[in-house]
């Protein structure tokens, strides 16, 4: 954490201490005929030179606050209160004035750098639009660490990697030395190792340029990593505001406390169900009087449902909007305990009872159109994996690692080019996808969707089965009559799980089922998957990019890099004592409160052209010359005298004589 800038220190310089403010800001807009109360009276200030982390779940209004400060709230919004930038109210300003403020004082970085850059304009021109000249654009691209900036000036966005695209966005944001950069989830679409690089870049730029940053994020770990102060929003209001350490380590608001407890880190107790916040975020279409968090709060009293609390200073510089005294909030376990049942004992990995067994699976895709121009994408380059009955295995890796392809091969949605896929029992595995909304047919009711899988039952038996499946995933029977669009994200993911388990499959395949969900919902879905697995005796193969999720859901973790497993072992061992250099950097890149990440340079190489030898060697700090040996196939070696832990690195001194388990065919 860098030194705090006290307001009085900077007042002298150019005469301002506060870059931007929100003053009793209300923003309401109409969507589908309903009034959405996005912001309901929020006041805060962004100090000069500080990084303010704006944290909240979806629907909390954090992005709306950012857009209102940019003056990009759109014509349909009803706004009261003020949102000032360098003293200029962006709410009442004319379009021309807003543009002038944006040019002179503001920069913006948005979530998805692919869609946020114009796909048909060269990046040099896009940066120059903000920078004023090509020379300045080039200087900025160098400043944000774009390698070979001259040649990249004439590249189109699709020719750059995700990390480079976000660097280009940042170059545009800091063009013209803005006083405030508004960064709306700038790392959410990036891989975790790239996220660490981008966060460090934003901090460095703040230190060098002296601009303030409003860092909007749903990830408390990201906020902890980068922010000087943190503001927590809930249902369009400010819940808590203070120094990062104070807010995240000694939270004063029951909501922040709940978030911190349900948050998945590499340190949570994985033998118990996760303490998920009960209930869901209230709908911004129908705000209730009183404290919006009170229905989910364990210390709420009857007064909470009537009086809307204003933020008060509970400690110096630390504000919390809660009617209960600080001592009461902190002393109580504010999270209603969801049954803390012990997890199923990890099953022994018995090759004979493998529910799913993959041997030397190779899968390539042809990309590009036309004749003779196809390039080969090496999605899986010889993967072997056994999942025992009742076991849960997580596949972890960055984009392009092949983890989702492996899942689709296991599901039978893709056919392997070579290798074997064996499922015990013969009944098909079921899949749960990341985007629960898109994977439910919009015009069918939940009952019809679930009923499809038990079509041969009679009418009454089918209805009973559907009710049973819904109650198993904790949904009331009324949900059966609803369509997917009428459900919340958490409910939809539960429906997807009910569809997958209405006829219990031997293997449940999960493709990032929690990554689109908010922290509190993700925890409850993970708990649900663990319970279903135990009650139905299923094996689970779980794909995620998030090591802390993998650690909680899985008995074993397999780490993939460019189509190969580089390390596999017991979840605790892989996350606490990683062996492979890639796993080590993944573990250290997970942002968390009070941790300084070790930053891995570069980005994953393209699966169109995987490096020779160990594919990780171009990014590996320990790489030796022999790592790039083209003759070297990847060998997963036993770490110790057991069959669980294996790693593929020639530089690790394994105390036992390594026994090569299998060798991938060269060039496969």
């Amino acid at each position, binding site marked *: 954490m860098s030194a705090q800038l006290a307001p009085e220190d900077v007042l002298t310089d150019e005469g301002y201490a506060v870059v931007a403010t929100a003053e009793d800001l209300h923003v309401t807009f109409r969507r589908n005929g309903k009034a959405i109360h996005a912001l309901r009276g929020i006041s805060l200030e962004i100090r000069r030179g500080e990084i303010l982390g704006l944290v909240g779940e979806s629907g909390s209004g954090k992005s709306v606050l950012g857009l209102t400060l940019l003056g*990009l709230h759109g014509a349909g919004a009803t706004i009261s209160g003020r949102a000032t930038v360098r003293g200029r109210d962006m709410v009442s300003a004319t379009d021309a004035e807003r543009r002038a403020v944006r040019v002179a004082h*503001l920069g*913006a970085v*948005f979530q998805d750098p692919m869609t946020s*850059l114009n796909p*048909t304009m060269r990046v040099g021109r896009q940066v120059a*639009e903000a920078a004023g000249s090509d020379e300045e654009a080039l200087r900025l691209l160098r400043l944000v660490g774009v390698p070979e900036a001259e040649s990249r000036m004439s590249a189109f966005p699709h020719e750059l990697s995700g990390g480079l695209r976000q660097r280009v966005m940042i170059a*545009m944001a800091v*063009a013209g030395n803005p006083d405030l950069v508004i960064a709306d989830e700038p790392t959410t679409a990036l891989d975790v190792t790239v996220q660490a690089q981008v966060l460090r870049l934003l901090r460095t730029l703040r230190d060098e340029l002296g601009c303030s940053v409003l860092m909007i994020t749903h990830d408390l770990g990201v906020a902890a990593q980068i922010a000087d102060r943190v503001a927590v929003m809930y249902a369009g209001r400010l819940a808590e505001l203070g120094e990062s350490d104070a807010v995240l380590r000694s939270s004063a608001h029951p909501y922040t406390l709940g978030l911190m407890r349900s948050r998945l880190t590499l340190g949570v107790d994985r033998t118990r169900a996760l303490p998920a916040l009960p209930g869901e975020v209230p709908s911004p279409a129908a705000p209730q009087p009183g404290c919006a968090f009170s229905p989910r709060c364990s210390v709420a009293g009857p007064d909470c449902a009537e009086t809307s609390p204003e933020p008060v200073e509970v400690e110096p510089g630390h504000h919390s909007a809660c009617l209960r005294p600080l001592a009461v909030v902190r002393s109580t376990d504010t999270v209603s305990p969801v049954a803390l049942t012990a997890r199923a004992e990890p099953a022994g990995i018995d090759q004979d009872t493998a529910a799913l067994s993959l041997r030397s699976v190779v899968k390539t895709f042809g990309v590009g159109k036309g*004749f003779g121009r196809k390039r080969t994408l090496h999605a899986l380059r010889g993967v072997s994996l056994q999942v025992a009955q009742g076991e849960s295995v997580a596949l972890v890796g960055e984009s392009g690692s092949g983890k989702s392809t492996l899942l689709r091969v296991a599901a039978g949605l893709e056919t392997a080019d070579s290798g074997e896929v064996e499922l015990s029992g013969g009944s098909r595995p079921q899949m749960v996808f990341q985007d629960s909304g898109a994977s439910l047919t919009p015009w069918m009711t939940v009952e019809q969707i679930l009923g499809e899988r038990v079509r041969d039952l009679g009418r009454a038996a089918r209805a009973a089965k559907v009710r049973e499946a819904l109650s198993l995933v904790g949904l009331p029977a009324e949900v059966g009559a609803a369509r997917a669009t009428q459900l919340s994200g958490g409910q939809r993911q539960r429906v997807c799980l009910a569809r997958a388990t209405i006829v219990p499959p031997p293997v449940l395949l999960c493709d990032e089922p929690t990554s689109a969900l908010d922290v509190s919902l993700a925890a409850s879905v993970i708990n649900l998957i663990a319970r279903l697995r135990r009650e139905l005796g299923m094996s689970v193969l779980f794909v995620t990019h998030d090591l802390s999720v993998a650690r909680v859901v899985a008995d074993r973790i397999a780490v993939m890099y460019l189509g190969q497993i580089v390390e596999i072992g017991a979840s605790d061992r892989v996350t606490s004592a990683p062996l492979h250099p890639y796993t080590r950097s993944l573990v250290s890149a997970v942002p968390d409160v009070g941790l300084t990440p070790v930053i891995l340079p570069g980005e994953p190489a393209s699966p169109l052209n995987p490096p020779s030898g160990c594919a990780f060697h171009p990014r590996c700090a320990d790489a030796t010359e022999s790592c790039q040996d083209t003759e070297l196939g990847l060998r997963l070696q036993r770490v110790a005298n057991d069959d669980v832990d294996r790693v593929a690195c020639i530089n690790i001194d394994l105390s036992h004589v390594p026994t090569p388990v299998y060798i991938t065919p060269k060039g496969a």
Partner: protein
Amino acid sequence: MTQVRFVGQRFAAMVIIVLALAAAVFALQKMSPLDPVHARLGGQASQGAIAAERHALGLDRPIVTQFGHYLAGLVHGDLGDSYRTRRPVTTDLLAYVPATAELAATGLIIALVLAIAFAFASTLRVRGAGLFRLGLMLGASVPTFLLGVFGILLFYQHFGWLPASGRTSIGNAPTGPTHLLTLDGLLHGRPDVTWDALKHLLMPATAIALGPAVAIGRVLRSSLEGELSSDYVRTARAKGRSERQILLGHVVRNAVGAAVSMTGLQVGLMFAGVLVVEQVFGWPGLGLYIAESIPVADFPAIAGVTLLLGSAYVVINAAVDVIQAAADPRIRV
């Protein structure tokens, strides 16, 4: 290298389409109950004359040989002789094509201008855009020939502003080098000819343009509106660019793709519209030519027109691909 391959692919496609069209027209000719010899010689011809004519036309040879002969002619640009005019079909086509080309090109230009005006007016919520849209939709919903007839009644009969038929009213209009009267008039220093030709063009060209204008305009409008709410436009606004700079500098290039492919499709339909409209306005083009060829089963002529329009369609769609690739760097031809 990729350009060479692209041209090669398109040329191959054209060859295949022409072959398929030729085979189809040829088969149609053989299945038709109409007898070209009968059509040429009339009902009173003697058996000997008929046999001699059959031999002269090559109709007494095996069908495969006839088709092979026809294809061999195609390679040399020989489409055979028209039964009706007794001239080489190629000569006839060269005489009729300029009129049709001029009409179709003018129609396309009018369609594009109307479509762009329509799309931008509704995207920018210009006053009167709704009325403009209503007028266009009304015009497009009326069949082309009826539109032509209404036009003639109104602008020729009633107001007398525009001529009702033909390409020109000037007797000594210059011919060549392009055979397009609007251009030839300029090239020969005769603006009166160009002006007169434009007046003749306006009604028939507008009649064929209204339908395509609505189709292209709607596609362009929806892509403009879609692009205007996209993330990169938000980025451009955050940079402080003006709406004008955003629309012209960012949005248009991203929005043209769908409109260009719609234009390619509409040009195909426009050919059909041209053939009808030429009847209504007595336009001396391919429509008139084929309308006179069909009743007398003049298959060489029908085949010639069919092959020409088919090839034009392939060329236009290749142009569509080139324009799209130029607009969007993610597409490579």
